[in-house]
């Protein structure tokens, strides 16, 4: 199995990176016409790793086809999806691969400025990335006349400030422009009118990190890895009740079961698996009988959830699903940007009902109400955050309804006290 994203040992030095073939992908790209690079990425079938799985080559094609200049490339390093830490692992262990990937993209799109929107909670990674950027500048992989090609690129790091919604690409763009990070109306799409109204490509850290390999090995080779519709390796963040939590670079399409048992060492303390969230907190939960699900964008959807960020959260038999659902909804309520009615008002309502269940104040009809409110949210929000919140609740109810009823009738079967769980502090 080839691993090309995260090396065994962390590589922060540019010399080390070059020794392992680093910046050769860029060299290759620079030897090609920008249009050819776009074509190659399109052929590779690379899909964005930020969550939606949108074909990267297609996105680039739209942006490249827009006559407006300058164009911008933006790396989405906002990684806010709970249960996800793979972008952080990349930044920490292999920062140059991101820089190389962005340089390839910049060449393909004739962009001369790139921004990395980095989440506020990664200050150490910011230092690492900035050091790597300085090295790349010094070595001529960034700045003027990159590798003698005449191309130029500057990459700036922009620190977020703790708003999950800024991971959504249009909100990210507004945030980068110094505004409240609320999703924008689409169309126009960022590829036509993004940062400062200019064509802008936003890609996830891991998406960029796939590019050096695609360039080096060629689209043909790349497509041999992973699932047919979703080629390449994927980084899985595995957390929760497993023996060996961590980030795993595995081919797309590997089953959830293999990830949990073969790679992450199985359930902690030999307990039984109760449930797993396959793609970060925004993905609906799956019960144990669904762990044969292949982990790629298309399959997970078929199996009733989504691959999302690939944040696999594993729960053992002693985990209370109401508690998990409640905490998830606290998250959504806290992170709703407030733009649209169903999400702004609905996430809080769902949280409030779940809080009743948690504090033994649940009453008959609450489950119906949870379903109703969720259905009223789903499909009618401005951006996927609100939909996600609703789908999460519906997911828990689909697979663990009895446990919810049980909370109403007899309280938590796990004997938890029913005291009010944690709540993020409101901004004053």
């Amino acid at each position, binding site marked *: 199995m080839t691993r090309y994203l995260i090396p065994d040992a962390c590589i922060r030095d540019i010399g080390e990176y070059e020794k392992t073939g680093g910046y050769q992908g860029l060299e290759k790209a620079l030897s090609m016409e920008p249009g050819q690079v776009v074509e190659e990425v399109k052929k590779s079938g690379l899909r964005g790793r930020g969550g939606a799985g949108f074909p990267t080559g297609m996105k680039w094609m739209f942006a490249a086809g827009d006559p407006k200049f300058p164009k911008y490339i933006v790396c989405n390093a906002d*990684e*806010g*999806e*709970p*249960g*996800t*830490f793979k*972008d*952080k692992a990349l930044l920490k262990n292999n920062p140059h691969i991101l820089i190389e990937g962005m340089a390839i993209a910049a060449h393909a799109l004739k962009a001369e400025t790139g921004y990395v929107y980095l*989440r*506020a*909670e*990664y200050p*150490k990674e910011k230092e690492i990335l900035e050091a790597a950027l300085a090295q790349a500048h010094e070595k001529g992989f960034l700045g003027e006349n990159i590798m003698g090609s005449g191309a130029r690129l500057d990459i*700036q790091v*922009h*620190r*977020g*400030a*703790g*708003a*999950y919604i800024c991971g959504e690409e249009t909100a990210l763009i507004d945030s*980068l*422009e*110094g*505004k*409240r*990070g*609320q999703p924008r109306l689409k169309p126009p799409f960022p590829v036509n009118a993004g940062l*400062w109204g200019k064509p802008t490509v936003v890609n996830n850290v891991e998406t960029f990190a796939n590019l050096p390999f695609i360039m080096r090995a060629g689209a043909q080779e790349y497509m041999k890895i992973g699932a047919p519709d979703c080629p390449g390796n994927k980084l899985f*963040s*595995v*957390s*929760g*009740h497993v023996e060996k*939590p*961590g*980030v795993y670079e595995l081919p797309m399409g590997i089953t959830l079961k293999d990830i949990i048992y073969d790679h992450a060492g199985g359930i902690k303390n030999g307990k039984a698996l109760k449930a797993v*969230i396959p793609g970060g*907190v925004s993905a609906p939960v799956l019960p144990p009988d669904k762990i044969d699900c292949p982990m790629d964008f298309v399959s997970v959807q078929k199996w009733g959830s989504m691959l999302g960020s690939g*944040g696999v*959260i594993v*729960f053992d038999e002693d*985990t209370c699903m109401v*508690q*998990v659902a409640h*905490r*998830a909804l606290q*998250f959504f309520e*806290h*992170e709703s*940007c407030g733009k649209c009615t169903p999400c702004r008002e609905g996430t809080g309502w769902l949280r409030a009902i779940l809080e009743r269940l948690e504090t033994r104040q649940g009453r008959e009809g609450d489950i119906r109400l949870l379903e109703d409110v969720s259905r009223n949210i789903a499909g009618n929000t401005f951006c996927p955050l609100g939909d996600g919140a609703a789908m999460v609740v519906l997911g828990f109810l689909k697979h663990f309804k009895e446990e919810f009823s049980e909370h109403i009738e007899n309280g938590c079967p796990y004997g938890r006290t029913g005291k009010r*769980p*944690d*709540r*993020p*502090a*409101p*901004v*004053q």
Partner: protein
Amino acid sequence: MKSEKSQREKTFSPGALTRLEEIKKKYPDKRAALMPALYIAQDEFGWLRPEALKAVAQYLELPEMTVRSTATFYSIYKHEQAGRNMVRLCTNVSCMVLGASTLKGTLKTLYGLAPGGTSPDGRFQLEIGECIGACDRGPAMLVNDDLHTELDTKKLIQVLESYK
């Protein structure tokens, strides 16, 4: 007869102004420098008090309301007078199932820290945070810019004791 008030009116230090100038160069539009400028302002003013927001507004030639409205959207900024050390304890799902809730209790009993509050001695401020990307080694927390992972009560106390 020189204005006492205008002398008291705090603005950015020369060092901060240099940093701000550098930051402005990163963007074609000065408004984009707002978020980084807010970080600098909170360093300079302690927290984003109205004078801090005004100073940012004046520096970037933005309406004061625009600055305030933008700043308050983001929860990482210090919007209130804060304790000396900012503790962000993650209680999101992965950390929660690994025991983050009990740690919250510890903070309350040992340090008098309630979510959103400041310890009586002004040493700590607690924010109950969302996921900080350390779920594989949860429960996790950030104290200022330092990440601490695999916390249990003992380690929590140990860590906090290293902050004054």
